[in-house]
Structure formats: C-alpha cells, structure tokens
C-alpha cells in the first residue's frame, strides 16, 4: 500500500510532470551529439584526399557542414528559449515549444550525424568512430518519450484551437 506514488489515479498527471524537464535534457544532449558529429565530420574531411583534392574542398561536403552549423544554431536558440519559458511561465505556458523541441532535436541530430557518417565513408559505420553509435542513440529519440507524430499531433491541435469557430 505504501508503494503507490501520490495516489491512485494520479499516474497520468505524474507522467506529464515527469517529462517536462526531461525534454530539455534530451534536446540539449542531442545538440551536444550533433556538435560532436560535426566536429568528427570536419576532422575527417580535412584529413583525407580523394580525386586529387581534399574532401573538404568538395562543394557538397561544404554544404553539409554549413547546413549542420545552421541547424545547430537554430535548434539551440529554440531549446534555450523553451528552457527560459519553463523557468518563467511553467510547463503549461511552454507547451508548444516543448513539443517542438521534442521533434526538432532528434530531426536535426539524425540529419547531421547521417551526413557525418557519409563523410567518414566506411569508417562511419564502424566502431572506430563515434558517429555510428551516436546515430543509433539519436534515432531512438524519435521514439523514446513519445514518437514525433504524437507531439506534432498535439502541437497542431493547440495551433488549430485558435481558429475554431465557437
């Protein structure tokens, strides 16, 4: 009897409360994983030569690097804004942003890590570099604590509510 938490019937509410800060933690860690992958990508492409020039000189590789940096900077601002909202107006007031980072962070991370894997060549899918393990980790976060689609559904409901006719 003494093992129930809070009270019978409180499970759903506790689950909601439990996930608020966890979303920030996961999202920020995914940014760290993205930074690590971008760093690994840059080190790899500046250390190898193919078809007579550094891989870093390939336009397509530079586009991956530029897009990766842009995505990280955008995402970090969004997650920090969400953290600030949670501190100032609480989880409810930050509802849309919390849903948004839960979707945006794994999306950015898997995109960047995937490019980093590609830039590594075969090494990218081996244990000799961290990128394959980072990918496996980031990919699960499209599902863990609720799949992307559930958060988008919830976000869209809230957005649509503004246009409901009374």
């Amino acid at each position: 009897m003494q093992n129930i938490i809070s009270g019978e019937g409180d499970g759903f509410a506790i689950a909601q409360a439990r996930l608020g800060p966890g979303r920030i933690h996961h999202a920020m860690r995914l940014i760290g994983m993205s930074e690590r992958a971008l760093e690994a990508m840059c080190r790899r492409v500046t250390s190898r030569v193919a078809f007579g020039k550094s891989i870093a000189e390939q336009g397509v590789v530079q586009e991956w690097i530029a897009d990766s940096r842009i995505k990280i900077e955008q995402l970090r601002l969004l997650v920090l804004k969400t953290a600030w909202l949670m501190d100032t107006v609480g989880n409810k007031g930050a509802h849309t942003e919390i849903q948004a980072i839960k979707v945006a962070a794994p999306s950015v991370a898997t995109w960047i890590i995937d490019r980093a894997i590609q830039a590594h060549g075969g090494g990218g899918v081996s244990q000799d570099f961290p990128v394959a393990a980072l990918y496996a980790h980031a990919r699960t976060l499209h599902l863990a604590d609720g799949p992307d689609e559930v958060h988008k559904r919830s976000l869209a409901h809230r957005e649509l509510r503004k246009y409901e006719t009374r």
Partner: protein
Amino acid sequence: MDFAFDARTEELRGQLTEFMDSHIYPSEPIFEEQLEKRENPWEQPPIIDDLKQEARSRGLWNLFLPGEHGGGLTNLQYAPLAELTGRSPELAPAALNCAAPDTGNMEVLTMFGTPAQKEQWLQPLLEGEIRSAFCMTEPDVASSDASNISTRIERDGNEYVINGRKWWSSGAMSPRCKIFIVMGKTDPSSHRHRQQSMILVPRDAPRREHQARHARFRLHRRIPRRPRRNRVHRRTSAGAEHHFR
C-alpha cells in the same frame, strides 16, 4: 533579450568542459574495451564508477535537479551543461548522476514521494548507489497513446497485485537497478486520465506463487544473440538492444 549565459552557468561550463577533456573523452576507449569484456551484457563497465567518483569530487553531481537536493539550477542554467554531456552520451550523463531514466524518477520522487519513499529510494539514487527504471511502454499495445497502457494494479487487502508486460524500460536489466516505477491501471472504469497509477516496485518484490502478492510483474526479457563485435550500440535496457549490424 540577453543571449549570454549567467556567471554561474559559465563557471560550471568551464569546469565541465575541463572534466570532459581530462576524463570523459580519454575514458571512451576504455569503456568500449570493458563492454567487450563483460560477462553479463547488462552490467555497467567499471570505468563509470571511477568517473562518478571524480565528477562528484569536482561538484559536478546531480546538476539536473532543481532545489536543495540537486544543483539548484534553473532549466536555462542546466541546459548548456546537458549539451556538453551529450557529446559523450554513454559516459558523461552517467558520470554526473544526470542520466535518464534516473533523472526523471528522482524528479518524480522529489515532487510526489512520501518521506519514507524518499528515504528508501530517492536518497540512494541521489548518492548514485543504485539505479532505477521507468516501466510504462508495453509490447502488447500502442503505448504512444498512454491511455492504452493495460498493466493492472489491483488492490488485494493491504497490498497491490500487478499483472502486465513491459518493455523498453531502459536500465531495468542492470543488476544495479533496484527500483522500478511501474505505470498501470488501478481503475479502468474511471475517467480516461484517472485510470492510471504509478507504483514503486522493488526489484526484490515477491514474484513467486507462494509469495504471490506483488507478484507476476514480468519484465519482458529480450537479449538478442549475436556476435559481440558486430554490436554498434549497446544499452543496458530491457529489450533495448539495437539491431544495427
């Protein structure tokens, strides 16, 4: 708008960056080696204990938890620190006692636990002595809709009997995991959001017929067999081995 981190955050970022450079990154190959060598695939490599001790001695401990029991940081202060730990996701969060699912479970116990529950479970978690699992997802239902969760928690006299199957309960298979927070239905006839409860299930809770009461809570065990060298990613999670080859 102010885009700068405050002084406390900058101080901690500096300390954490130095710890990552001096201890975490150099430990990654050791961690890999110890993973290969371990007998029990759910056992945590011993390097993590060394890192925990070092992190704690540097004051890099429980930073995720607001208030007096933790780092006392705001979300905005902790966020950039979580980013740094994400650079080595297998090692750094665990070293700082800031790894899921313990973080969420400690938050739950801090917010909702009775004094007795806090003493028995929160304290050893804060000390990093034990680990915990959060058992919500079930193999038999689409658990993305939490109202589907169908594990039954039924009262029988002064006790609860729990029946159900869980998976993706990260960390549950680790021998260090001593407590499960289990979500299930206490009242399926209640309002949609009032059917569920959470209950603390000690790992050593009676699970055999003659002891029956807390019984029949089964952890879905799924340990895929495949050559260790082929494993790209390992997690000490119930059913959470990834099938990358």
